[in-house]
Protein backbone atom coordinates (compact mmCIF):
# COMPACT_ATOMS: atom_id res chain seq x y z
CA UNK A 1 0.00 0.00 0.00
CA UNK A 2 1.24 3.38 -0.96
CA UNK A 3 -0.06 6.70 0.29
CA UNK A 4 2.27 8.78 -1.84
CA UNK A 5 0.75 11.38 -4.15
CA UNK A 6 2.14 13.89 -6.60
CA UNK A 7 1.10 17.51 -6.85
CA UNK A 8 2.95 19.11 -9.73
CA UNK A 9 6.66 18.57 -8.95
CA UNK A 10 6.07 17.77 -5.31
CA UNK A 11 5.87 14.24 -3.97
CA UNK A 12 3.88 14.06 -0.76
CA UNK A 13 4.42 10.99 1.39
CA UNK A 14 0.70 10.93 2.03
CA UNK A 15 -2.26 12.99 0.83
CA UNK A 16 -3.22 14.57 4.16
CA UNK A 17 -2.46 18.17 5.09
CA UNK A 18 -4.03 20.83 7.31
CA UNK A 19 -6.32 23.48 5.83
CA UNK A 20 -4.93 26.98 6.15
CA UNK A 21 -6.06 28.84 9.25
CA UNK A 22 -7.09 25.78 11.19
CA UNK A 23 -3.61 24.69 12.21
CA UNK A 24 -1.95 27.94 13.19
CA UNK A 25 1.68 27.64 12.16
CA UNK A 26 1.71 24.05 13.34
CA UNK A 27 3.33 24.90 16.65
CA UNK A 28 0.14 24.39 18.66
CA UNK A 29 -0.01 20.76 17.53
CA UNK A 30 3.57 19.78 18.26
CA UNK A 31 2.63 18.32 21.66
CA UNK A 32 0.04 16.06 20.09
CA UNK A 33 1.92 14.54 17.16
CA UNK A 34 5.05 14.73 15.05
CA UNK A 35 4.24 17.01 12.14
CA UNK A 36 6.65 15.04 9.96
CA UNK A 37 3.79 12.54 9.61
CA UNK A 38 1.80 14.97 7.50
CA UNK A 39 1.85 15.00 3.73
CA UNK A 40 2.57 18.73 3.87
CA UNK A 41 2.29 21.66 6.28
CA UNK A 42 0.02 24.51 5.20
CA UNK A 43 0.22 27.63 7.31
CA UNK A 44 -2.34 30.26 8.21
CA UNK A 45 -2.80 32.94 5.55
CA UNK A 46 -0.02 35.53 5.59
CA UNK A 47 -0.50 39.04 4.26
CA UNK A 48 2.08 41.71 3.51
CA UNK A 49 1.22 43.78 6.57
CA UNK A 50 0.09 42.52 9.98
CA UNK A 51 -3.68 42.26 10.42
CA UNK A 52 -5.50 42.44 13.74
CA UNK A 53 -8.50 40.63 12.34
CA UNK A 54 -12.19 41.21 12.95
CA UNK A 55 -13.88 42.18 16.17
CA UNK A 56 -15.11 39.33 18.36
CA UNK A 57 -17.13 37.19 18.64
CA UNK A 58 -15.32 35.51 15.75
CA UNK A 59 -16.47 31.90 16.00
CA UNK A 60 -19.76 30.17 16.69
CA UNK A 61 -21.13 26.69 16.37
CA UNK A 62 -23.71 25.86 13.69
CA UNK A 63 -25.48 22.56 13.00
CA UNK A 64 -22.71 20.10 12.11
CA UNK A 65 -20.03 22.73 11.88
CA UNK A 66 -19.05 26.24 12.68
CA UNK A 67 -18.88 29.76 11.35
CA UNK A 68 -15.90 32.07 11.65
CA UNK A 69 -14.97 35.65 10.89
CA UNK A 70 -11.35 35.68 11.96
CA UNK A 71 -10.60 38.25 9.28
CA UNK A 72 -7.18 36.89 8.27
CA UNK A 73 -5.57 37.97 11.53
CA UNK A 74 -1.83 37.35 11.12
CA UNK A 75 1.48 38.95 12.09
CA UNK A 76 2.42 39.94 8.52
CA UNK A 77 5.18 38.72 6.20
CA UNK A 78 8.19 40.34 7.90
CA UNK A 79 7.40 38.85 11.28
CA UNK A 80 6.58 35.50 9.70
CA UNK A 81 9.88 35.43 7.82
CA UNK A 82 12.00 36.50 10.79
CA UNK A 83 10.32 34.86 13.75
CA UNK A 84 8.11 32.01 12.57
CA UNK A 85 9.69 30.53 9.45
CA UNK A 86 12.91 29.57 11.28
CA UNK A 87 10.83 27.74 13.90
CA UNK A 88 8.71 25.78 11.43
CA UNK A 89 10.95 25.14 8.45
CA UNK A 90 12.04 21.75 9.73
CA UNK A 91 8.67 20.56 10.97
CA UNK A 92 7.83 19.00 7.60
CA UNK A 93 9.66 18.62 4.29
CA UNK A 94 6.89 20.29 2.37
CA UNK A 95 5.94 23.70 3.65
CA UNK A 96 3.13 25.39 1.75
CA UNK A 97 2.76 29.12 2.27
CA UNK A 98 -0.81 30.40 2.00
CA UNK A 99 -0.95 34.09 1.07
CA UNK A 100 -3.55 36.77 0.51
CA UNK A 101 -3.45 40.41 -0.48
CA UNK A 102 -5.67 43.44 -0.72
CA UNK A 103 -4.37 44.15 -4.19
CA UNK A 104 -2.63 42.37 -7.06
CA UNK A 105 0.57 44.15 -6.02
CA UNK A 106 0.44 42.60 -2.57
CA UNK A 107 0.07 39.13 -4.04
CA UNK A 108 3.01 39.87 -6.32
CA UNK A 109 5.11 41.18 -3.46
CA UNK A 110 4.54 38.03 -1.40
CA UNK A 111 5.16 35.75 -4.37
CA UNK A 112 8.49 37.48 -5.00
CA UNK A 113 9.45 37.04 -1.36
CA UNK A 114 8.35 33.39 -1.22
CA UNK A 115 10.37 32.65 -4.35
CA UNK A 116 13.55 33.55 -2.41
CA UNK A 117 13.06 30.96 0.33
CA UNK A 118 14.02 27.40 -0.49
CA UNK A 119 12.16 26.08 2.54
CA UNK A 120 8.88 27.27 1.03
CA UNK A 121 7.97 24.54 -1.43
CA UNK A 122 4.67 25.86 -2.76
CA UNK A 123 2.33 28.81 -2.65
CA UNK A 124 -1.39 28.53 -2.01
CA UNK A 125 -3.27 31.65 -3.03
CA UNK A 126 -6.21 32.50 -0.81
CA UNK A 127 -8.41 34.45 -3.20
CA UNK A 128 -11.36 34.64 -0.79
CA UNK A 129 -10.02 37.93 0.54
CA UNK A 130 -11.54 41.32 -0.30
CA UNK A 131 -10.20 43.33 -3.21
CA UNK A 132 -9.86 46.82 -1.79
CA UNK A 133 -9.75 48.60 -5.15
CA UNK A 134 -13.12 47.05 -6.04
CA UNK A 135 -14.98 47.96 -2.87
CA UNK A 136 -14.06 44.77 -1.09
CA UNK A 137 -15.61 42.10 -3.28
CA UNK A 138 -13.62 38.89 -3.01
CA UNK A 139 -11.02 38.40 -5.76
CA UNK A 140 -12.14 34.83 -6.10
CA UNK A 141 -15.70 35.75 -7.07
CA UNK A 142 -14.56 38.12 -9.82
CA UNK A 143 -13.37 36.13 -12.82
CA UNK A 144 -11.20 38.89 -14.28
CA UNK A 145 -9.54 39.64 -10.93
CA UNK A 146 -8.87 35.94 -10.39
CA UNK A 147 -7.20 35.59 -13.80
CA UNK A 148 -5.13 38.68 -13.15
CA UNK A 149 -3.87 37.50 -9.76
CA UNK A 150 -3.01 34.01 -10.89
CA UNK A 151 -1.24 35.12 -14.06
CA UNK A 152 0.69 37.89 -12.27
CA UNK A 153 1.86 35.52 -9.54
CA UNK A 154 2.67 32.87 -12.14
CA UNK A 155 5.09 35.26 -13.87
CA UNK A 156 7.00 35.72 -10.63
CA UNK A 157 6.73 32.38 -8.93
CA UNK A 158 8.33 29.35 -10.55
CA UNK A 159 7.65 26.68 -7.92
CA UNK A 160 4.35 24.90 -7.34
CA UNK A 161 1.42 27.32 -7.48
CA UNK A 162 -1.84 26.23 -5.89
CA UNK A 163 -4.98 28.35 -6.09
CA UNK A 164 -7.58 27.93 -3.36
CA UNK A 165 -11.00 28.73 -4.73
CA UNK A 166 -14.02 30.12 -2.98
CA UNK A 167 -17.31 28.22 -3.28
CA UNK A 168 -19.31 31.45 -3.24
CA UNK A 169 -19.80 31.55 -7.02
CA UNK A 170 -22.50 30.30 -9.37
CA UNK A 171 -20.36 27.77 -11.24
CA UNK A 172 -17.01 26.92 -9.72
CA UNK A 173 -15.80 25.09 -12.84
CA UNK A 174 -15.58 28.40 -14.68
CA UNK A 175 -13.21 29.71 -12.01
CA UNK A 176 -11.29 26.44 -11.90
CA UNK A 177 -10.68 26.60 -15.66
CA UNK A 178 -9.70 30.25 -15.46
CA UNK A 179 -7.14 29.50 -12.74
CA UNK A 180 -5.76 26.57 -14.71
CA UNK A 181 -5.43 28.67 -17.87
CA UNK A 182 -3.74 31.44 -15.92
CA UNK A 183 -1.04 29.03 -14.82
CA UNK A 184 -2.13 27.27 -11.62
CA UNK A 185 -0.44 23.91 -11.01
CA UNK A 186 -3.16 22.66 -8.66
CA UNK A 187 -6.42 23.81 -7.08
CA UNK A 188 -7.59 23.64 -3.49
CA UNK A 189 -11.35 23.24 -3.31
CA UNK A 190 -12.81 24.92 -1.23
CA UNK A 191 -12.73 27.80 1.20
CA UNK A 192 -15.67 28.48 3.54
CA UNK A 193 -19.24 29.26 2.47
CA UNK A 194 -20.45 32.75 3.22
CA UNK A 195 -23.04 32.69 5.99
CA UNK A 196 -24.55 34.30 9.05
CA UNK A 197 -26.13 33.44 12.40
CA UNK A 198 -28.58 35.69 14.23
CA UNK A 199 -29.05 35.58 17.99
CA UNK A 200 -32.79 35.43 18.48
CA UNK A 201 -32.58 36.72 22.05
CA UNK A 202 -30.60 39.88 21.31
CA UNK A 203 -32.03 40.06 17.75
CA UNK A 204 -28.55 40.80 16.42
CA UNK A 205 -26.00 38.93 14.32
CA UNK A 206 -23.85 36.72 16.56
CA UNK A 207 -20.50 37.49 14.93
CA UNK A 208 -18.84 40.83 15.56
CA UNK A 209 -18.32 41.05 11.81
CA UNK A 210 -22.00 40.11 11.29
CA UNK A 211 -21.21 37.47 8.63
CA UNK A 212 -18.54 34.84 8.25
CA UNK A 213 -17.54 31.57 6.62
CA UNK A 214 -19.22 28.24 7.32
CA UNK A 215 -17.09 25.10 7.61
CA UNK A 216 -17.27 21.58 8.96
CA UNK A 217 -19.33 18.50 8.01
CA UNK A 218 -22.27 20.79 7.14
CA UNK A 219 -20.53 21.85 3.91
CA UNK A 220 -19.15 18.48 2.85
CA UNK A 221 -21.76 17.50 0.25
CA UNK A 222 -21.27 20.80 -1.56
CA UNK A 223 -17.49 20.52 -1.36
CA UNK A 224 -17.55 16.96 -2.72
CA UNK A 225 -19.69 18.05 -5.65
CA UNK A 226 -17.36 20.93 -6.45
CA UNK A 227 -14.42 18.53 -6.55
CA UNK A 228 -16.45 16.14 -8.69
CA UNK A 229 -17.41 18.89 -11.16
CA UNK A 230 -13.93 20.40 -11.35
CA UNK A 231 -12.34 16.99 -11.92
CA UNK A 232 -14.18 16.90 -15.23
CA UNK A 233 -13.42 20.53 -16.05
CA UNK A 234 -9.65 20.74 -15.48
CA UNK A 235 -6.64 18.46 -15.74
CA UNK A 236 -4.49 19.77 -12.88
CA UNK A 237 -4.55 17.99 -9.48
CA UNK A 238 -7.26 18.92 -6.99
CA UNK A 239 -6.90 19.18 -3.23
CA UNK A 240 -10.27 18.54 -1.59
CA UNK A 241 -11.34 20.27 1.60
CA UNK A 242 -14.63 20.73 3.44
CA UNK A 243 -15.96 18.85 6.44
CA UNK A 244 -13.53 15.96 6.51
CA UNK A 245 -14.02 14.31 9.91
CA UNK A 246 -13.51 10.61 9.13
CA UNK A 247 -11.80 8.20 6.76
CA UNK A 248 -15.07 7.79 4.84
CA UNK A 249 -15.39 11.54 4.38
CA UNK A 250 -11.82 11.71 3.05
CA UNK A 251 -12.48 8.80 0.67
CA UNK A 252 -15.47 10.63 -0.79
CA UNK A 253 -13.13 13.41 -1.89
CA UNK A 254 -10.63 11.03 -3.49
CA UNK A 255 -13.41 9.24 -5.34
CA UNK A 256 -14.82 12.57 -6.51
CA UNK A 257 -11.45 13.49 -8.01
CA UNK A 258 -9.12 14.81 -5.32
CA UNK A 259 -5.44 13.88 -5.36
CA UNK A 260 -4.92 15.10 -1.81
CA UNK A 261 -7.12 16.44 0.96
CA UNK A 262 -6.98 19.06 3.68
CA UNK A 263 -8.47 18.87 7.15
CA UNK A 264 -9.89 22.06 8.65
CA UNK A 265 -12.35 22.43 11.50
CA UNK A 266 -11.89 18.84 12.66
CA UNK A 267 -8.40 19.82 13.87
CA UNK A 268 -10.10 21.89 16.58
CA UNK A 269 -12.27 19.03 17.76
CA UNK A 270 -9.61 16.33 17.58
CA UNK A 271 -6.09 17.75 17.31
CA UNK A 272 -4.73 14.26 16.63
CA UNK A 273 -7.19 13.59 13.82
CA UNK A 274 -4.76 13.87 10.88
CA UNK A 275 -2.28 11.20 12.02
CA UNK A 276 -5.24 8.92 12.78
CA UNK A 277 -6.64 9.55 9.30
CA UNK A 278 -3.30 8.78 7.67
CA UNK A 279 -3.14 5.50 9.57
CA UNK A 280 -6.70 4.59 8.69
CA UNK A 281 -6.22 5.38 5.01
CA UNK A 282 -3.21 3.05 4.99
CA UNK A 283 -5.25 0.29 6.63
CA UNK A 284 -8.05 0.83 4.16
CA UNK A 285 -5.73 0.38 1.19
CA UNK A 286 -4.38 -2.81 2.71
CA UNK A 287 -7.80 -4.23 3.50
CA UNK A 288 -9.20 -3.36 0.10
CA UNK A 289 -6.05 -4.49 -1.66
CA UNK A 290 -5.58 -1.20 -3.44
CA UNK A 291 -1.97 -0.61 -4.39
CA UNK A 292 -1.95 3.15 -3.99
CA UNK A 293 -4.22 5.95 -2.84
CA UNK A 294 -3.74 7.63 -6.22
CA UNK A 295 -5.78 4.79 -7.76
CA UNK A 296 -8.85 6.14 -6.00
CA UNK A 297 -8.72 9.60 -7.52
CA UNK A 298 -11.81 10.19 -9.60
CA UNK A 299 -13.01 6.61 -9.36
CA UNK A 300 -16.59 7.74 -8.88
CA UNK A 301 -16.50 9.08 -12.44
CA UNK A 302 -15.36 5.79 -13.96
CA UNK A 303 -18.11 3.95 -12.13
CA UNK A 304 -20.56 6.39 -13.60
CA UNK A 305 -19.44 5.64 -17.15
CA UNK A 306 -19.82 1.91 -16.62
CA UNK A 307 -23.46 2.13 -15.60
Amino acid at each position, binding site marked *: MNLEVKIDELTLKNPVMPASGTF*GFGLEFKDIFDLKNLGALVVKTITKNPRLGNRPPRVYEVSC*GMINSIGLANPGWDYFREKILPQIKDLNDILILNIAGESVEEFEYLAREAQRFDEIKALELNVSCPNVSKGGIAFGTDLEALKQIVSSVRKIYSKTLIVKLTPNVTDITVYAKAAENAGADALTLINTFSGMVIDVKSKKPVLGNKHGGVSGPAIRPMAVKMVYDCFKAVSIPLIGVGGIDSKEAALEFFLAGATAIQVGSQNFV*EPGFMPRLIRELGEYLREENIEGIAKLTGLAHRREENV
Partner: protein
Amino acid sequence: MQDLKGLVVENIPLTKEIYKLQISVPEEILPEIIPGSFAMLKIEAKGVFLRRPFSFADVDLKTGLVTFYIKLVGKGTGALREIHPGQEISMLLPLGRGFTVMPGKSLLVAGGIGIAPLNFLAREIIKKGGEISIIYGVKNEAMFIPEITKNFKNIEVYSEIPGPGKKGLVLDGLKAKDINSYDQIYLCGPNVMLQAAKPYLQNFSGLVEVSLESYMACGFGACLGCVVKVFSNNEIEYKKVCKDGPVFNFKEVVL
Protein backbone atom coordinates in the same frame (compact mmCIF):
# COMPACT_ATOMS: atom_id res chain seq x y z
CA MET B 1 -1.66 19.91 26.22
CA GLN B 2 -2.83 16.33 26.01
CA ASP B 3 -5.84 14.74 24.39
CA LEU B 4 -6.88 12.01 26.77
CA LYS B 5 -9.83 10.05 28.09
CA GLY B 6 -11.13 10.68 31.58
CA LEU B 7 -13.50 8.44 33.47
CA VAL B 8 -16.62 10.03 34.93
CA VAL B 9 -16.78 9.20 38.62
CA GLU B 10 -19.61 11.42 39.77
CA ASN B 11 -22.13 13.73 38.16
CA ILE B 12 -24.65 15.19 40.56
CA PRO B 13 -27.06 18.12 40.48
CA LEU B 14 -26.28 20.73 43.12
CA THR B 15 -29.13 23.09 42.26
CA LYS B 16 -31.70 23.42 39.49
CA GLU B 17 -29.06 25.06 37.28
CA ILE B 18 -25.70 23.77 38.46
CA TYR B 19 -24.18 20.33 38.56
CA LYS B 20 -20.88 18.96 39.74
CA LEU B 21 -18.88 16.69 37.47
CA GLN B 22 -15.96 14.69 38.81
CA ILE B 23 -13.63 12.94 36.44
CA SER B 24 -10.70 10.67 37.07
CA VAL B 25 -7.69 11.56 34.91
CA PRO B 26 -4.24 9.98 34.52
CA GLU B 27 -1.97 10.77 37.43
CA GLU B 28 0.89 12.26 35.39
CA ILE B 29 -1.21 15.16 34.22
CA LEU B 30 -2.43 16.29 37.66
CA PRO B 31 0.58 18.41 38.69
CA GLU B 32 0.23 20.44 35.47
CA ILE B 33 -3.29 21.52 36.32
CA ILE B 34 -3.19 24.90 38.03
CA PRO B 35 -5.94 27.29 39.18
CA GLY B 36 -7.30 29.23 36.22
CA SER B 37 -6.46 26.56 33.67
CA PHE B 38 -9.25 24.74 31.89
CA ALA B 39 -10.17 21.71 29.81
CA MET B 40 -12.02 21.35 26.50
CA LEU B 41 -14.56 18.57 26.95
CA LYS B 42 -15.93 16.60 24.02
CA ILE B 43 -19.63 16.19 24.44
CA GLU B 44 -21.08 13.33 22.41
CA ALA B 45 -24.51 14.66 21.61
CA LYS B 46 -26.57 15.45 18.56
CA GLY B 47 -25.77 18.86 17.11
CA VAL B 48 -22.70 19.48 19.27
CA PHE B 49 -19.67 19.88 17.02
CA LEU B 50 -17.15 21.90 18.99
CA ARG B 51 -15.73 21.03 22.37
CA ARG B 52 -16.77 23.12 25.38
CA PRO B 53 -14.39 24.90 27.78
CA PHE B 54 -14.67 24.43 31.56
CA SER B 55 -12.37 25.68 34.31
CA PHE B 56 -10.96 23.30 36.83
CA ALA B 57 -12.79 23.92 40.10
CA ASP B 58 -10.59 21.54 42.04
CA VAL B 59 -7.91 18.90 41.65
CA ASP B 60 -7.26 16.14 44.14
CA LEU B 61 -3.76 14.77 43.80
CA LYS B 62 -4.55 11.83 46.09
CA THR B 63 -7.66 10.50 44.35
CA GLY B 64 -6.71 11.71 40.86
CA LEU B 65 -10.07 13.45 40.51
CA VAL B 66 -10.73 16.78 38.83
CA THR B 67 -13.90 18.69 39.63
CA PHE B 68 -16.01 20.94 37.43
CA TYR B 69 -18.98 23.06 38.48
CA ILE B 70 -21.19 23.41 35.46
CA LYS B 71 -24.05 25.75 34.79
CA LEU B 72 -26.81 24.57 32.51
CA VAL B 73 -26.76 26.89 29.51
CA GLY B 74 -27.65 25.12 26.27
CA LYS B 75 -27.27 21.89 24.32
CA GLY B 76 -23.74 21.01 25.36
CA THR B 77 -24.14 21.61 29.07
CA GLY B 78 -27.58 19.97 28.82
CA ALA B 79 -26.15 16.78 27.33
CA LEU B 80 -23.17 16.74 29.69
CA ARG B 81 -25.57 16.68 32.63
CA GLU B 82 -26.72 13.26 31.46
CA ILE B 83 -23.29 11.64 31.39
CA HIS B 84 -23.06 8.75 33.86
CA PRO B 85 -20.37 7.50 36.21
CA GLY B 86 -18.36 4.86 34.37
CA GLN B 87 -18.59 6.64 31.03
CA GLU B 88 -15.45 7.93 29.32
CA ILE B 89 -15.04 11.50 28.19
CA SER B 90 -12.44 12.94 25.84
CA MET B 91 -10.64 15.96 27.27
CA LEU B 92 -7.97 18.36 26.05
CA LEU B 93 -6.01 19.55 29.04
CA PRO B 94 -4.56 21.44 30.72
CA LEU B 95 -5.13 24.61 28.73
CA GLY B 96 -4.49 28.28 29.25
CA ARG B 97 -2.47 30.51 31.50
CA GLY B 98 -3.58 30.33 35.13
CA PHE B 99 -3.61 32.68 38.13
CA THR B 100 -0.41 33.94 39.73
CA VAL B 101 -0.54 32.65 43.29
CA MET B 102 0.97 35.24 45.62
CA PRO B 103 1.72 35.30 49.36
CA GLY B 104 -0.11 37.57 51.76
CA LYS B 105 -3.79 38.50 51.80
CA SER B 106 -5.89 37.82 48.74
CA LEU B 107 -9.42 38.94 47.97
CA LEU B 108 -11.36 36.66 45.63
CA VAL B 109 -14.42 38.09 43.91
CA ALA B 110 -16.78 35.63 42.23
CA GLY B 111 -19.99 36.17 40.31
CA GLY B 112 -22.19 33.15 39.62
CA ILE B 113 -20.41 30.18 38.08
CA GLY B 114 -17.23 32.32 38.20
CA ILE B 115 -16.76 30.71 41.61
CA ALA B 116 -15.49 27.55 39.87
CA PRO B 117 -11.86 28.56 39.18
CA LEU B 118 -11.73 30.72 42.33
CA ASN B 119 -12.60 27.72 44.50
CA PHE B 120 -9.47 26.00 43.18
CA LEU B 121 -7.41 29.18 43.54
CA ALA B 122 -8.56 29.69 47.15
CA ARG B 123 -7.52 26.17 48.11
CA GLU B 124 -4.15 26.64 46.47
CA ILE B 125 -3.48 29.96 48.20
CA ILE B 126 -4.39 28.44 51.57
CA LYS B 127 -2.18 25.44 50.86
CA LYS B 128 0.72 27.78 50.23
CA GLY B 129 0.11 29.62 53.52
CA GLY B 130 -1.69 32.68 52.19
CA GLU B 131 -4.86 34.25 53.58
CA ILE B 132 -8.07 34.65 51.64
CA SER B 133 -11.42 36.42 51.75
CA ILE B 134 -14.12 35.60 49.23
CA ILE B 135 -17.03 37.65 47.99
CA TYR B 136 -19.44 35.29 46.28
CA GLY B 137 -22.34 36.91 44.48
CA VAL B 138 -25.19 34.97 42.90
CA LYS B 139 -28.40 35.83 41.13
CA ASN B 140 -30.62 33.55 43.17
CA GLU B 141 -30.81 30.26 45.02
CA ALA B 142 -30.43 28.23 41.80
CA MET B 143 -27.01 29.76 41.13
CA PHE B 144 -25.71 29.21 44.65
CA ILE B 145 -23.39 26.28 45.43
CA PRO B 146 -23.79 25.59 49.17
CA GLU B 147 -20.70 23.38 49.47
CA ILE B 148 -18.44 26.30 48.57
CA THR B 149 -19.33 28.13 51.78
CA LYS B 150 -18.42 25.03 53.77
CA ASN B 151 -14.94 25.00 52.30
CA PHE B 152 -13.88 28.44 53.51
CA LYS B 153 -14.15 30.55 56.65
CA ASN B 154 -13.93 34.04 55.18
CA ILE B 155 -16.68 34.00 52.64
CA GLU B 156 -19.51 36.47 52.18
CA VAL B 157 -22.46 35.58 50.02
CA TYR B 158 -24.62 38.11 48.21
CA SER B 159 -27.80 37.32 46.34
CA GLU B 160 -29.48 39.63 43.84
CA ILE B 161 -32.95 38.52 44.82
CA PRO B 162 -33.55 37.43 48.40
CA GLY B 163 -31.93 34.05 48.85
CA PRO B 164 -28.72 32.81 50.36
CA GLY B 165 -26.56 35.37 52.19
CA LYS B 166 -27.13 39.12 52.15
CA LYS B 167 -29.31 40.76 49.57
CA GLY B 168 -27.17 42.71 47.14
CA LEU B 169 -24.60 42.58 44.41
CA VAL B 170 -20.95 41.61 44.37
CA LEU B 171 -20.26 45.31 44.09
CA ASP B 172 -21.97 45.94 47.44
CA GLY B 173 -19.58 43.43 48.96
CA LEU B 174 -16.63 45.13 47.35
CA LYS B 175 -17.73 48.57 48.56
CA ALA B 176 -18.06 47.27 52.11
CA LYS B 177 -14.43 46.11 52.10
CA ASP B 178 -11.30 48.08 52.73
CA ILE B 179 -9.71 46.77 49.58
CA ASN B 180 -6.38 48.37 50.34
CA SER B 181 -5.93 45.95 53.21
CA TYR B 182 -5.37 43.21 50.61
CA ASP B 183 -2.21 42.44 48.71
CA GLN B 184 -3.93 41.16 45.58
CA ILE B 185 -7.37 40.66 44.11
CA TYR B 186 -8.69 37.95 41.78
CA LEU B 187 -11.97 38.06 39.89
CA CYS B 188 -14.15 35.80 37.80
CA GLY B 189 -17.72 36.48 36.80
CA PRO B 190 -20.03 37.85 34.13
CA ASN B 191 -19.00 40.93 32.17
CA VAL B 192 -21.54 43.17 33.90
CA MET B 193 -19.92 42.36 37.23
CA LEU B 194 -16.44 43.01 35.87
CA GLN B 195 -17.50 46.30 34.32
CA ALA B 196 -19.04 47.44 37.58
CA ALA B 197 -15.96 46.45 39.57
CA LYS B 198 -13.47 48.08 37.23
CA PRO B 199 -13.65 51.68 38.51
CA TYR B 200 -13.34 50.48 42.12
CA LEU B 201 -10.16 48.60 41.44
CA GLN B 202 -8.47 51.03 39.09
CA ASN B 203 -6.39 52.65 41.84
CA PHE B 204 -5.61 49.47 43.73
CA SER B 205 -1.85 49.19 43.71
CA GLY B 206 -1.45 45.40 43.95
CA LEU B 207 -1.97 42.69 41.39
CA VAL B 208 -5.51 42.31 40.04
CA GLU B 209 -6.18 39.26 37.90
CA VAL B 210 -9.33 38.22 36.10
CA SER B 211 -10.34 34.99 34.44
CA LEU B 212 -12.28 35.76 31.26
CA GLU B 213 -14.64 33.79 29.06
CA SER B 214 -15.14 33.90 25.35
CA TYR B 215 -16.61 31.68 22.70
CA MET B 216 -13.99 29.14 21.70
CA ALA B 217 -13.56 26.82 18.76
CA CYS B 218 -10.28 25.08 19.61
CA GLY B 219 -9.13 26.13 23.09
CA PHE B 220 -5.44 25.79 22.30
CA GLY B 221 -4.48 28.75 20.15
CA ALA B 222 -5.06 27.41 16.65
CA CYS B 223 -8.21 29.21 15.43
CA LEU B 224 -7.77 32.79 16.73
CA GLY B 225 -11.48 32.79 17.47
CA CYS B 226 -11.50 33.61 21.17
CA VAL B 227 -9.82 37.01 21.28
CA VAL B 228 -10.44 39.89 23.69
CA LYS B 229 -9.15 43.43 23.53
CA VAL B 230 -6.22 44.14 25.80
CA PHE B 231 -4.50 47.46 26.35
CA SER B 232 -0.85 46.94 27.18
CA ASN B 233 2.39 48.78 26.42
CA ASN B 234 0.23 51.66 25.19
CA GLU B 235 -1.22 49.54 22.45
CA ILE B 236 -4.56 47.90 21.80
CA GLU B 237 -4.08 44.26 20.99
CA TYR B 238 -6.26 41.22 20.53
CA LYS B 239 -5.21 38.43 22.88
CA LYS B 240 -6.34 34.84 22.82
CA VAL B 241 -8.41 33.95 25.87
CA CYS B 242 -7.45 30.29 25.49
CA LYS B 243 -3.70 30.73 25.32
CA ASP B 244 -2.70 34.23 26.49
CA GLY B 245 -5.44 33.84 29.14
CA PRO B 246 -8.00 32.99 30.39
CA VAL B 247 -6.32 34.85 33.27
CA PHE B 248 -5.36 38.42 32.42
CA ASN B 249 -4.20 41.52 34.23
CA PHE B 250 -7.58 43.10 35.05
CA LYS B 251 -6.32 46.62 34.51
CA GLU B 252 -5.32 45.80 30.94
CA VAL B 253 -8.47 44.16 29.61
CA VAL B 254 -10.94 46.23 27.64
CA LEU B 255 -14.36 44.96 28.67
